[in-house]
């Protein structure tokens, strides 16, 4: 056997995606190569080749010929370095250096400005000399950004800082050079304003950059969960392969304590698996042959082999990452107003500053030029559009990331906003409130006769009730009779021909519709139903021959979840195809407010709409497959996932585990996130609305209050930081 080697090339700098994909086919045509895969996102190319016939230099030469760039070999032995992380760290370092230099010079400038020992003009020249590096080096980026924006007739916070501090600096320089140029106006310089404001804004930016990193760490944490290699059985031998080379269908070996690399189904062996990182369930899950396993979860006790079903971008983890990042970038409806304001905010502030200058100059007290100037600068440097822009997205980012940690996947910001307002929650019964695995508890009539007829009708079916009958029949070794002329009657049962007899299996309605009397079984049926059991009658040739009672126990988490919702003043309902007495028995057991029984699957949607007509904001909790129309009709569809499917189309929220306590947790998380957003908006807007007029001097005629530009700059620098820090408080959210 030849020795297969895998090589990963970094194609950073490749100019065109189409050229890169033509590169893929060029490499594939090299005889030594057995497999090539191009990842356009990471801009890497993975090549599997025979090392006796090929070598890395050969591929690098081809890359150069096709793309004109020098590809570098990615060494998989080292932990793959995070390019983005690296950039962020260097950015932080640069910011820190600027803050330190700015702070030292500003302190000296402030001290020098207030203790005049030298003649004024000489002092001003020294101050000018110290301020220039602060403006040019520390604050240079504001001026560059301002200039770049102005070229495109755009403005942002940097524009305000640049214009404000630039004016203070330019004016002071002018005064220094020609003290008498502005006539009788007092020759006061504002070098300290320029230096201190720039330094404070930089300090704010530094803290902001640090805080942002932690606001955004949900995705990074999820990505870090993924395994790097997999132990794959290929050609009868175990090989450790990088994850990129694992394909669907591979047989993979997992030992105790190891991470399960990709999604798949267990073939043999048994173990317990800690799935908390993906589904949020805290108790390890038992796995045996046939059970699905999820990549990135941790195998605890035993060893097993499984067949990979999903790899790469199809795995549950990859889907979660995609879903969370989509949710984080979505816009909450609450933000529409904010958007309208921020779009015009900066130009409006510049106009307010001009108006401030003009009014103070024309109508203000002496020295009017000084007042006009200082107040206009204060207006420019106090306004903070960033705080408004950051208010909503930062909370959404932290909130959805927090949800993912508990297995609560929120589709978008709109769903989060709706979850907050939910007043009533409808639970589907089977498989949602209950485990969905019914078992036969009682049987009336001749056991063998009843079960063999029922088995004949249900043996092809995968319906949960059928499963209960089939497994009981198999347990008792009942022979399978042949049935023909199948007919399923929705919400009622089934009809078929067995041994020439017309056999009915279903609920009371089915019997009534076919005019089959229950006869002696009528009292037993009523009694069994009152006990919360689903009862099916079996009839042959128009005569009832027996009853089968099945029970589907509520999930252990159900009562606790319903109680939590009640405490939150949310009305709870259960919807089911079962008859009323069965449904009520289950309803009582879990403490639900209201039971809606005898509902055909296709009518669930109508009941959702009926509640909405009562002006209720309705959430529907279901399995996402059978309940899709009802989930879609509700204001908020909550799908109980099984841990293996992530993006359920009709649902606004997908719960990765079957734990019903995630439902109240979702509502609590949404309430926490939305009130966090409101706090942020209150501070961001209130701040600008309250302080800009103060800076303009509207309080001066009444109290003589003015805003010192240095204080204004400081307040501005910390307003966006305060928004981010407030959003970060959401990280302390606990599900219970």
């Amino acid at each position, binding site marked *: 056997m030849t020795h297969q080697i895998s090589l990963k090339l970094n194609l*950073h700098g490749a*100019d*065109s*995606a189409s050229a890169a994909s033509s590169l893929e086919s060029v490499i594939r045509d090299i005889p030594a190569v057995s497999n090539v895969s191009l990842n*356009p*996102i990471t801009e890497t190319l993975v090549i599997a080749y025979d090392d006796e016939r090929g070598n890395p230099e050969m591929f690098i030469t081809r890359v150069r010929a096709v793309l004109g760039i020098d590809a570098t070999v990615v060494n998989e032995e080292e932990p793959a370095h995070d*390019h*983005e992380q690296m*950039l962020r760290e260097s950015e932080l370092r640069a910011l820190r250096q600027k803050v330190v230099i700015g702070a030292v010079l500003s302190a000296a400038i402030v001290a020098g400005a207030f203790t005049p020992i030298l003649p004024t003009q000489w002092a001003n020249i020294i101050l000018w000399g110290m301020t220039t590096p602060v403006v040019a080096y520390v604050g240079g*980026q504001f001026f*560059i*950004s301002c*200039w*770049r*924006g*102005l*070229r*495109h*007739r*755009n*403005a*942002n*916070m*940097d524009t305000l800082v640049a214009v404000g501090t630039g004016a203070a600096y330019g004016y002071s320089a002018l005064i220094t050079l020609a003290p008498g140029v502005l*006539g009788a106006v007092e020759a006061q310089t504002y070098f300290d304003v320029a230096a201190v404001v720039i330094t404070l804004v930089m300090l704010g*930016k530094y803290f*902001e*950059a640090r805080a942002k990193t932690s606001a955004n760490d949900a995705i990074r944490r999820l990505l870090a969960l993924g395994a790097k290699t997999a132990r794959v059985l290929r050609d009868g031998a175990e090989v450790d392969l990088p994850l990129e080379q694992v394909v669907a269908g591979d047989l993979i070996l997992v030992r105790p304590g190891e991470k399960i690399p990709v999604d798949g189904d267990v073939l043999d062996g048994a173990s317990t698996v800690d799935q908390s990182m993906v589904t949020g369930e805290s108790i390890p899950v038992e796995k045996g042959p046939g059970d699905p396993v999820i990549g990135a979860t941790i195998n605890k006790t035993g060893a097993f082999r499984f067949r990979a079903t999903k790899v790469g971008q199809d795995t549950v983890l990859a889907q979660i990452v995609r879903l969370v*990042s*989509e*949710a*984080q*970038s*979505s*816009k909450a409806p609450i933000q529409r107003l*904010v*958007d309208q304001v*921020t*779009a*015009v905010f*900066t*130009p409006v502030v*510049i*106009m307010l500053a*001009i*108006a401030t*200058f*003009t*009014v103070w*100059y*024309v109508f203000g007290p002496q020295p*009017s030029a000084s007042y*006009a100037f200082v107040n206009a600068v204060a207006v420019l440097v106090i306004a903070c*559009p*960033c705080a408004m*822009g*950051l208010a909503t*997205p930062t909370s959404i980012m932290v909130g959805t990331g927090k949800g993912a940690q508990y297995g609560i996947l929120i589709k*978008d910001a709109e769903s989060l906003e709706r979850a907050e307002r939910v007043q009533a929650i409808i639970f589907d019964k089977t498989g949602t409130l209950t485990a969905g695995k019914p078992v036969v508890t009682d049987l009336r009539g001749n056991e063998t006769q009843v079960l063999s007829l029922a088995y004949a009708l249900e043996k092809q079916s995968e319906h949960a009730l059928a499963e209960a009958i089939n497994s009981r029949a198999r347990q008792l070794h009942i022979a399978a009779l042949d049935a023909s002329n199948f007919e399923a009657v929705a919400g009622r049962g089934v009809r078929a021909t067995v041994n020439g007899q017309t056999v009915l299996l279903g609920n009371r309605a089915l019997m009534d519709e076919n005019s089959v009397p229950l006869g002696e079984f009528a009292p037993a049926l009523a009694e069994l139903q009152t006990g919360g059991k689903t009862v099916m009658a079996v009839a042959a040739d128009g005569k009832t021959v027996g009853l089968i009672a099945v029970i589907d126990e509520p999930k252990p988490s159900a009562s606790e979840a319903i109680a939590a919702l009640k405490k939150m003043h949310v009305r709870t309902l259960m919807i089911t195809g079962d008859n009323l007495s069965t449904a009520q028995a289950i309803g009582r057991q879990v403490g639900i407010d209201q039971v809606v029984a005898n509902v055909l699957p296709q009518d669930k949607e109508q009941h959702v709409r009926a509640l909405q007509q009562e002006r209720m904001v309705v959430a529907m909790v279901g399995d996402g497959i059978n309940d899709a129309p009802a989930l879609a009709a509700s204001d908020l569809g909550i799908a109980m996932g099984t841990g293996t499917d992530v993006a359920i189309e009709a649902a606004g929220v997908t719960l990765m585990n079957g734990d019903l306590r995630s439902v109240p947790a979702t509502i609590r998380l949404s309430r926490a996130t939305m009130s966090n957003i409101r706090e942020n908006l209150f501070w961001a807007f209130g701040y600008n609305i309250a302080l800009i007029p103060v800076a303009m001097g509207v309080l001066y005629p009444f109290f003589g209050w003015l805003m010192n530009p240095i204080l204004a700059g400081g307040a501005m620098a910390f307003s966006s930081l305060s928004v981010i820090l407030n959003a970060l408080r959401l990280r302390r959210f606990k599900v219970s």
Partner: protein
Amino acid sequence: MSVDKIAVGIGGVAALLFIAWFFFGKRQTVVAVESRVRITVDGGYTPEAITIKRGRTVRLEFLRKDASSCLEEVVLPELGVRRHLALNETTPIDITADRVGEFAFSCGMNMYHGKIIVVE
């Protein structure tokens, strides 16, 4: 009222009008895109508005030249994309629009804007 006050008063009003015209009175040029387009991120987005055909996948290549932290992220809310743009690098984003209409994109702080117009 002294001459300088009158001059400042008139100058102030003129400056207000100029600022209003400068920021609010600009026209957008719309670029029709077939399969890919380079959008330069530098004090805004160039081009600022593009048209694409419905159902066609288009690659937007954002080349960020501006170090301002405001522009470090690009957000396409309707398409569920929020991407960090590395400075002086091209970040490709593939988009497919399945309905006709206008999709806005903006920087992470919603200061700079652009739009994608989807046509039949």
